[in-house]
């Protein structure tokens, strides 16, 4: 596409002007008459000097000049030369920054310990990752951390270090020392795995904390008793519950409709985090990492919320009450539940979590 300029010109006898232009071998593209004294003429960008000189010479008023095609780009670059220079400098800078370590993520071990080991090896924030041998680094860290193995992966300008710690062998058990298996919490026995010793409880028994479950003794047919170490497992069914009272009102945070969107730029470990103008809010975030650059754009929308108290019937808020009861029960729960049941009455909802734990603990005599 040929570069052109569109000139809005104002003056008397426009026909005379057009005749003069074509006489000077200027090709006119798209000539439009706006009114009696105004016309828009389009000429090649290369002829702009000749045309503008003629317009000045003939005392025509030039109202607007619009650049079309490559000329427009060139003109924008001229006008925003500072921006262009910044872009030209910034792109190689960003590419170069992608080869530098701006963030170190550590999994599976103490972060500071790993960072210290990396520092000793010569790797750290702001250091180049170009000539880094990851195999050698992994071997070094494995030895330094006394780990089972370490993986080091570069993702853009982030160094991901994952440490898998060495699994220690269990302490050898002295099977000759007499010991009992004792309940470490209350519960109802659900199953017993007996390897050595004498079981004092059976499935379905309710046991309390401190009660001997498997006694460390072997009873022979002649009635003699030999002290042994009790070996086995005793499992018990345990429950955990949370009650939520219902008084006819339900308090919940609701969105007011006000929202505040912000796009944060995370460069390396620097986060342009700003103030949130709401006291209570919900957030929805999306992020985009510009690899290989060390730049992550995080777009977050903050929705303002207010606490609202509503008069409701039990059926209307049953789901909310169940959820609150379940959340509370899960927070308190110290075992992995396998069933959840809800007890609903007129003034409360109870979530009951049921699970199984091993309650037996070896206690030496």
């Amino acid at each position, binding site marked *: 596409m040929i570069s052109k300029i569109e000139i809005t010109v104002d003056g008397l006898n426009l026909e005379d002007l057009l005749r003069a232009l074509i006489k000077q*071998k200027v090709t006119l593209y*798209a*000539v439009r008459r706006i009114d009696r004294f105004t016309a828009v003429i389009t000429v090649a960008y290369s002829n702009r000097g000749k045309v503008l000189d003629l317009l000045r010479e003939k005392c025509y008023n030039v109202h607007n000049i619009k650049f079309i095609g490559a000329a427009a780009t060139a003109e924008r670059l001229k006008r925003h030369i500072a921006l262009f220079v910044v872009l030209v400098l910034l792109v190689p800078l960003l590419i170069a920054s992608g080869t530098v370590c701006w963030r170190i993520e550590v999994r599976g071990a103490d972060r500071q310990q790993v960072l210290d080991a990396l520092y000793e090896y010569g790797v750290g924030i702001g250091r180049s990752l170009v000539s880094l041998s990851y195999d050698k680094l992994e071997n070094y860290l494995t030895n330094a951390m006394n780990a089972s193995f370490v993986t080091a992966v570069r993702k853009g300008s982030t160094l991901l270090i994952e440490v898998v710690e060495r699994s220690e062998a269990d302490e050898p058990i002295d099977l000759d020392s007499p010991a009992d298996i004792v309940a470490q919490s209350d519960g109802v026995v659900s199953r017993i795995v007996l390897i050595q010793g004498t079981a004092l409880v059976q499935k379905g028994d309710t046991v309390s904390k401190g009660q001997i479950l498997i006694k460390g003794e072997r009873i022979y047919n002649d009635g003699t008793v030999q002290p042994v170490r009790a070996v086995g497992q005793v499992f018990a069914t345990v429950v955990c519950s949370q009650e939520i009272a219902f008084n006819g009102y339900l308090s919940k945070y609701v969105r007011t409709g006000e929202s505040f969107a912000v796009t944060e730029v995370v460069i390396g470990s620097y986060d342009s985090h700003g103030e949130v103008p709401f006291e209570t809010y919900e957030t929805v975030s999306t992020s985009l990492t510009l690899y290989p650059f060390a730049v992550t754009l995080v777009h977050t929308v903050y929705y303002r919320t207010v606490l609202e108290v509503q008069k409701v019937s039990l059926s209307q808020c049953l789901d909310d009450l169940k959820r609150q009861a379940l959340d509370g029960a899960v927070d308190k729960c110290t075992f992995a539940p396998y069933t959840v049941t809800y007890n609903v009455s007129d003034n409360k909802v109870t979530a009951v979590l049921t699970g199984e734990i091993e309650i037996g603990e070896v206690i030496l005599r």
Partner: protein
Amino acid sequence: MKKLSDVSLETADLETLSVMRYKCCVYGNHTAVVEGHKGLKKFGDSEIQLRVGKGSVSVTGQVSLALLTDSSAVIKGHITGVRYDDF
């Protein structure tokens, strides 16, 4: 095999294009091409008049100049008439 333009020229009793002082071609009612004009005489949004030979050719309608050089012009728009005037 003769080309269509040659047949047309023969039919019109014109041996070559060089015999023409100017040429005006109208494509449908949207484009008119005038070659060999001698200058712009009148330019408005309802009529564009060009000097040709010893007279002029006027293209009327809602028209504008798509191209204008020292010898040819392309007129576009909604053409309602083409008129030739002899001096």
